């Protein structure tokens, strides 16, 4: 695990959570640096929202400790943890105006009136919701509602922001707008932010570090680019990247000149950076991202190239996705939209094995 730089803002130690006999989180450890934007990424049911609820204090944990700003908050109430939270369904109080929503927590905390007004003014200025203050949530659009929800966390003046899939209820266009706004907000406030999502684009664009979760366990915790380039196992490789990575099953042959062999294909691996110094032999899976496969003249110059037949073409506007077969498995690669490719054409594709990922077939771990 990569240690976060600086003093940890949120620190989770050996956190476990069981619902009856079901282990949702297992001895989970995580340190989040001050001002860091951490994204918890995973498919639904992987425990990422549960982990966030544990940090917020909305779920009682079974074992372990949670520290926020060096203070042990394991048994503290949510309001005493110094957190603000934004929910997927906005969770605005429907009977209150926007102003009422923003001030509810502050009034509950017994803050003086002028202080409440000051904080609301600041938050609504940052989020540009001043014209909406007197409206009820039902009179707001989805994007405005989510902005108010962020404002409710903002006025609390806390150190740690928790986002629970805040953009999942919005349409694609609004989602990308608010994504940028959240990034801007983070740059401006420099608070610690923990962001739960199942959307890899949100994770890659927003995060300082991404924690990819599966089955209540963090699979990989690293910077977005590192996770993208060097996934630690097949699950992470498959989950991140769109279109997803190509996988070819085959055999790894070690020795002086390691090779990957599958159904008439032999890929030289002398440029591949093995995790272990000595390359093992045996069943393995070869993974290469569609965007790392070149075609045509450029391909011929690469360490591995092969002529293949185009099977399906999916135009995507800016480029197109071409489906073909290699080594008995499906292979997709990106091509420029202007390329005059047709189904049935034969084209040379190639890649640099240095950009590939090799996984042990039985365990799925990176070799």
């Amino acid at each position, binding site marked *: 695990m990569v240690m976060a730089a600086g003093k940890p803002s949120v620190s989770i130690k050996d956190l476990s959570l069981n619902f009856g006999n079901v282990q949702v989180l297992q001895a989970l450890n995580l340190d989040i640096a001050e001002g860091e934007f951490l994204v918890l990424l995973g498919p639904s049911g992987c425990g990422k929202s549960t982990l966030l*609820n544990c940090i*917020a204090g*909305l779920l009682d944990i079974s074992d372990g400790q949670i520290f926020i700003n060096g203070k042990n908050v394991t048994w503290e*109430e*949510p*309001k005493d943890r110094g*957190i*603000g*939270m934004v*929910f*997927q*369904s906005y*969770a*605005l*109080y*429907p*009977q209150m105006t926007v102003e009422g929503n923003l001030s*509810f*927590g502050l009034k*509950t*905390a017994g803050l003086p009136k002028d202080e409440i007004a000051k904080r609301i003014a600041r938050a609504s200025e940052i989020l540009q919701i001043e014209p909406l203050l007197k409206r009820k949530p039902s009179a707001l659009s989805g994007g405005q509602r989510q902005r108010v929800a962020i404002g*409710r966390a903002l006025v*609390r003046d806390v150190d740690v922001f928790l986002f*629970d899939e805040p953009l999942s209820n919005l349409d694609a266009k609004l989602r990308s707008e608010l994504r940028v706004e959240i990034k801007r907000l983070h740059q401006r406030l420099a608070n610690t932010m923990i962001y739960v999502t199942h959307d890899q684009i949100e994770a890659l664009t927003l995060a300082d570090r991404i924690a990819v979760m599966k089955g209540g366990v963090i699979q990989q915790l690293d910077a977005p680019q590192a996770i993208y380039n060097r996934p630690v196992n097949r699950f992470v490789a498959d989950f991140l990247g769109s279109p997803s990575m190509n996988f070819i099953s085959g055999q790894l042959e070690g020795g002086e000149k390691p090779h990957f062999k599958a159904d008439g294909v032999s890929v030289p691996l002398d440029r591949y950076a093995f995790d272990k110094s000595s390359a093992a032999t045996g069943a393995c899976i070869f993974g290469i991202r569609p965007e790392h496969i070149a075609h045509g003249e450029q391909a011929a110059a690469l360490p591995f190239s092969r002529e293949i037949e185009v099977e399906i073409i999916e135009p995507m506007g800016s480029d197109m996705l071409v489906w073909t077969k290699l080594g008995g498995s499906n292979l997709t690669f990106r091509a420029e939209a202007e390329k005059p490719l047709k189904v049935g054409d034969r084209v040379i594709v190639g890649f640099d094995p240095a950009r590939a990922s090799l996984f042990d077939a039985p365990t799925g771990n990176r070799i």
Partner: protein
Amino acid sequence: MADTATLDMAPAATATRIETGPRGAKPRKTFSRRNIFLYGTLIVVAVYYLLPLYVMVVTSLKGMPEIRLGNIFSPPVEITFEPWVKAWSQACTGLNCDGLSRGFWNSVRITVPSVILSIALASINGYALANWRFKGADLFFTILIVGAFIPYQVMIYPIVILLREIGLYGSLWGLVIVHSIFGMPILTLLFRNYFTSVPEELFKAARVDGAGFWGIYFRIMLPMSLPIFVVAIILQVTGIWNDFLFGVVYTRPDTYPMTVQLNNIVNSVQGVKEYNVNMAATILTGLVPLIVYFASGKLFVRGIAAGAVKG
């Protein structure tokens, strides 16, 4: 493709594009077989339901000589409000001859505190069961719901003893407590289901904002649940007002609710049967639930449907 599109939009072409034959909305006949069956059935059922009410109103406005003629469906020849006045203020039940007015005020004094107490308790119960999932919540809820299926008759005598022991037997407050207890299972179920339909994240957000058990109840949940409160009020007002069994068991003659008094007026075996007074007394007794329905019918329907629509 582009050529034909431009041709279609030319003004000369649009006028002639419509061909003969069916066009626009499909016409519907007023006296179709379907309509005759539908409205025919509805009218028959409505008459069937409203006829007794009509007989009651008509009879209550007749004098006794006219009633003795036996034409119960004929409208009154001479309209008189005498039976209404008698039913309200002069009809005799046992020793008292001050009519239904005594029972009316007794019923008010029973219904109002019972409704408030039972709804207050049940809404807090439902809120706790729905939002503050404590250990054994499901078991507790099951026990409460089982209570709704136990016949009242089984519990009458034990409750008599209980009330006697705490010294409330025969008093209005004793009856209020009984009504509150028996309203609990169904009302708790009602409120629990409503509060369960409130998004959980709202509750979580309020907790992050620092609101506690009562803070969330009074400031978040209560203002959101007006429809379900109206439903509960209607159920309880009509239920408690119309109750006869508990009223006759747990009160004394001077604290009898209106329904018990009505029974005593109508079923008195001495003297002549004054049908017009009986009818007037019955309508008077049924008036309160009727008014509640008419006044809040719209809200009632909205409350019943509230669970189905996302807030």
